[in-house]
């Protein structure tokens, strides 16, 4: 069973160690712009939201790339960019609904999460449980359990009211 990277914004505190760890691992420096993941503070809903590639089943970036520079890794299932083929047309950035593909001004190339060869650095440095690396079926069960919790809370509240 392939593993997937699960995001739980409820647990995210906005420490950005995911982004710092990502840029450090990939570029040996610290940068928000060069990180393949970021967290954004959505103050209107009191929530920090980790934003990153979802490695979609139907990746628009892959479809739109005129150079065939984007592919899915057989091993990790990650959607990856071949920097040698990328011409920097930014079409992938335009179509991605998560803003997960970004431009690296120094490398003159698009960059995105590649799941660190199935050992994601961001997950290793998230001490809050906002990012987890789980087999896909476990992830589904865990989401369902979480959903059940919310439902139960809502029902209890309904009863109280």
């Amino acid at each position: 069973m392939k593993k997937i990277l699960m995001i739980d914004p409820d647990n995210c505190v906005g420490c950005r160690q995911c982004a710092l760890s990502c840029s450090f691992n990939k570029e040996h420096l610290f940068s928000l712009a060069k990180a393949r993941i970021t967290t954004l503070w959505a103050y209107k809903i009191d929530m920090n939201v980790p934003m990153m590639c979802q490695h979609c089943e139907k990746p628009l970036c892959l479809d739109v790339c005129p150079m065939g520079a984007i592919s899915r890794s057989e091993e990790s299932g990650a959607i990856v960019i071949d920097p040698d083929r990328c011409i920097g047309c930014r079409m992938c950035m335009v179509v991605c609904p998560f803003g997960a593909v970004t431009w690296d001004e120094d490398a003159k190339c698009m960059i995105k999460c590649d799941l660190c060869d199935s050992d994601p650095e961001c997950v290793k440095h998230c001490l809050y449980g906002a990012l987890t690396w789980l087999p896909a079926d476990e992830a589904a069960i865990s989401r369902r359990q979480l959903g059940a919790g919310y439902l139960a809370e809502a029902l209890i509240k309904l009863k109280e009211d």
Partner: protein
Amino acid sequence: MDYFGYAGKELYIDLTDGVIEEKPLNLDMAVKFLGGMGIQQRLLYDLLKPGTDPYSPENPIIIGSGPLTGTGAPGSPRVMGTTKYPETGAIGSAGGAMRFGFMLKFAGYDHIIITGKASKPVYIKIVNDDVEICDATHLWGKDIVETTENLWDVYGDCGVIAMGQAGEHLGKLAQAACDLGSSLGRGGLAGIMGSKNLKALVASGTGSIKIADAERFKKARETLFEGAKRYAYHGDIVRYGIMQSWANYRVQFGYTKNRTLVPDLKIIDKGIGFEAYKKLGKTAFGCPSCFIADKEIVEMHSGRFKGLKWSTAAYLNAAILSTRLDLKDSGEAVKFGEVTDRLGIDQLGFSDLLDFIFTLHEEGTIGSSDVGGLPLKRGDIDVVLTWLEKTANREGFGNVIADSWQGLMNAFGEDLVKDKTAVIKGREGIWEPRISGLGTNEFAQLTYPRGPNAESGGSGLYALNQPIETVRRHAQRMGMSKEAIDRSFDSPLKINIGRFVTSSEHWLALFNSLGICNRHVNNRFYHIDIIAELYSAATGIDQSPQELIKYSERVWNLFKMINVREGFSKKDDEPPEVWFQPMVTHEGKELYMMDYYKTRRLTREDVEQWLRDYYNERGWNIETGIPTREKLVELGLEEMVPGLQK
């Protein structure tokens, strides 16, 4: 030139003529004074003419971070604000956190040096090298929450330092806030911003912080992460924040009636304390790079203030300060905290001042007519809110409170204030030694050149009743030499506080200079060896642990000398008389100031002796309490020797 760890640039902004100038970071100065507080103090030493009025355009505000800020070193978001503070007249480096310093580094700057006075309200925008003094007319009159949210809306992912109405009215209790999660500049930083017509600062950046030796940095960083992963209380701290230590802090700070009475803490626990806190809605958040986040947005689910939300570094402060004013429940505590933070008023100072006034009234010393008709009723949140509004806007008697203890001395006479309060260098101490014993934090309120504050004395003896073995381990973490440890622990009271404080002050200077958060929950993971590894690997400037401690000592001596130049000396380090008078518990038991381990009652002579030991440990003149020429030369501070002539 490539900079590692440091961003590599400083930004000079003159608000009078609107000139913005970028200068490379002086690397020699960075090597010598580390960064953050160290560099800021050194810059101010050259920029500030002694005797300058804090509110004059010539008083600079320097804001920025250290070489570890912006890196993945855990808990390294510290942003420092150095200026001459109006409440005490002392030069200080206040610490804050959240995103501003972090973002400023990614924008490419280590420090911003702001001088002059804008002709109309402005805010400073720094988006990479796009730096602009922007019109803030639309923000003037708005509170800190409104101002911050407005700038978040405009600039998106950024860091914001903002001030509220108290700052606009040049309050000495006015402090700024960083991203609604950290205060900055107790003692009037926001008042100085107000005097410059500077409403806010905003920073964001897409740059990078380069690391000189990534492998070496990684190793040290991973050691810290492993420590945090093993820490059994990690989950509790994220869940409960600093309230996790309620049982400790409620004792340390649980007093009222102008520090004469310790109330029944069991009653407070129920209405305002940990039990009440657990019933609040809570969203945890943290600063960038924090691996043990303890900040929170709390929300009232019931009562008069149902639906009220408050973004804060700690509900704990409001809970404790509400005790002082006899507020009754968590809703009133949250309201008090929320409004003080919106207006930008120092909660600690304000609650002490109001408690003092209420106490004078209860004793029959003053009546309503003495305070311009303002209500004198303890235990009423609406009364407290009225006083807060009046103070922020300097209306009526609020104008007196806005000047803090100096205002009350002017109104009621210096003797009354000095006889009845623990005012040191113009501000009341936070740590009450008659409850906790005279530990490092309590004692260092006397010696802290900035005037007493929460971080006084660093973290030597943060909590109550720590076993001596724990304290000794902490001493080693702080990089104390064997000789310094021997001297500090050679005492019939187990610890010679005067000597020990010098080392915890160096530890604080190191954190403040490198950019590491000094909060206990973060501090406890750090060791001088790890810090030396992180610093050397990040900057490429190889420093041993011993050298770093020596450099911190240099920073502390500079900090002292810049205040000596303003006229501070031993007379300003004297213990307040009330420390030698008893407090009374609600059960009628008298509390006298004792040593940390409560071995015996301390006399003025005991404290004076520890002060002499403190000066002696520092190699300062024990009669005047200021550094000697030899010490300054030893530390490479020859340029400060002329300051001794004054």
